[in-house]
């Protein structure tokens, strides 16, 4: 499918360029927008894999929830000074070396483990064949196989909420 290929490259470019701009822009708001662009690209990639549920959830959670809060905080805090100040991070060389190592490692893993990836074939047993919709599949998997992690994750969130309220209350 030509359209799929073209779309894939568009979304991949969004993800990568967004990620690069996120760390190179000086203005925090521009960084945040680049991150949003990157996240939207990821959502698009999900959609190309016919994972509609993940697509929508990615947008609702990351763009609608997390990034809005990010922007909210950025606007409350005046970051102009920080953007104009001289950046103290001089570890570019180390950073690039680390990235190169991790990249090489990942490439090596992908090369060695390529048999483990099931590249989708037409009519294969991938997500595409699920006429029932992958929302139902995710729900089944979450509530049967991964029931325990799913439930205890809610405890984790509860603890996080309680903790932040305790920290933010006027007096203990």
């Amino acid at each position, binding site marked *: 499918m030509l359209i799929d290929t073209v779309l894939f490259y568009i979304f991949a470019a969004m993800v990568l360029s967004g990620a690069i701009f996120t760390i190179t822009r000086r203005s925090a708001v521009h960084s945040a927008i680049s991150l949003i662009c990157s996240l939207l690209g990821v959502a698009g990639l999900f959609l190309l894999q016919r994972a509609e549920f993940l697509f929508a959830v990615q947008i609702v959670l990351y763009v609608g929830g997390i990034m809005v809060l990010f922007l909210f905080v950025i606007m409350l805090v005046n970051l102009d000074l920080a953007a104009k100040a001289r950046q103290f991070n001089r570890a570019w060389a180390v950073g690039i070396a680390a990235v190169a190592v991790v990249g090489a490692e990942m490439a090596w893993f992908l090369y060695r*483990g390529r048999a*483990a990836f099931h590249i989708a074939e037409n009519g294969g047993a991938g997500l595409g064949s699920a006429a029932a919709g992958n929302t139902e599949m995710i729900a089944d998997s979450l509530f*049967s196989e*991964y*029931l*325990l*992690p799913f439930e205890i994750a809610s405890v984790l969130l509860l603890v996080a909420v*309680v903790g932040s309220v*305790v*920290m933010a209350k006027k007096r203990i």
Partner: protein
Amino acid sequence: MPVDLMPASADLIRLLPEIVLTLMGTLLMVLAAILRKRSSNAYGNLSIAALLAALGAAVYAYTRQGPAFGNMLVVDGLATFFRALVIVVGILTVLASYRFLRRQGAETGEYHALLLFSIAGQCLMAAANDLIVVFIGLEISSLASYVMVGYLRDDKRANEAALKYFLLGSFATAFFLYGVALVYGITGTINLSGVRAALTAPESCLQAGAGSVLCVQNWLAPWPIFLGVAAALLFVGLGFKVSAAPFQIWAPDVYQGAPSPVTAFLSTGPKAAAFAVFLRIFMSAFEPGGAAWEPLVWFSALASMTIGNFAALRQSNVKRMLAYSSIAHAGYVLVALTARSADGAAAVMFYLGAYAFMNIGAFAVVGHLAGKGERYQDIEDFGGLGQKQPLTAAMLTIFLLSLIGVPLTGGFFGKFYIFKAALESHLVWLTVLGLLNSAVAAYYYLRVLVMMYFREPSQAAIEAEPLRPGLRAALLVSAVATLFLGIFPNWVLDFSNKSAAMMK
């Protein structure tokens, strides 16, 4: 669609301690909202009840051993030992907190609720058999303890401690996650039984839960370096929690800044749970690739012991000194891990049991003496405690002697088993250096003893209020347990030997 989503009752029984703790924690917060009473012992009493119930549940779960939730959780001797240990640690912490919180005017339901949640997370870690459950348990435990560290918000040191702990802790957890990802890349599973199977025999299948078969393949069998990298990344995450060198930097500041009962809890509960995960991951799942990670643990053990002990020599703040000593103790435990034997695992369990009692006891005394706003933490402030409060001083003596490792205390047998296991695994150098280290350690513990008995009473000792029932109970239980482990070590040792043998 017609999937029966209700888990089997056996699964629920094996999860019972966590269920009890979480429910009671939630109940506590609801009560706190309804009661709206500030200084009240009700919260503490309720959480003691909850912890006792959870202890019962942990023992009851032990009668129904086995995997639960599709092998995500496993209840065996190791799990039960560590569950019981962290729950007992919790009880002692609550006992020590009664008077402390009253004195700081900070008795709330949330403190106890967070404590219960944290213990629930640690219980999960103790019983987890899947890295995702380990991770969530770790996060539950850590998030709750970050908040507890900064609980006294008007104290600047507490703020600093909480921020440091939070930032570094999240950073370390990220390393842990990368490690999990690498493990998944190597073996195609994050179930610890599956990982072990994959590392033992490439391309093997094992029964996972009801009917489903988990097939794993080790794509990278000829390259143990990747296994070493994965182990190293997991080690970063766990090493941070147990404050092992070189991830110990946070410990002195956090232990000093946190409220004393929280410090007591922090230096024992999360540490014990993290070591449980250590045992599960390194002694069970990663055991087949042992050669890849052994040098790492060897180095960390030596570094922790040395840094901890030598830095503690120079401290004048007692909380800080005990923090460095706790780094050193993490080093001793790592020595036992380096041994890579069932004896070593048993020694780890025994040592952590003994260490929990003596360390909580020591911090409880420090918190008792420190007074309102934790003013008195200096070593000078212990002057003359032996005259003013003989009972408190006597108990602190027991704890410190045990920390040194004097015979007739739990600490002695803990160290004895550790170095015995190390020698049996031909780690002669590590044993020798470890023994030298514990000789150095004796100096700074004895300094406190000298202060207490051979100096005139200090301002702190004069101002110190008499022991209240809760704190007295905590101290007595810890002291009796420390002595008990030193005189009759066999009960606990038999259990840990049995569990360690079963773990394989």
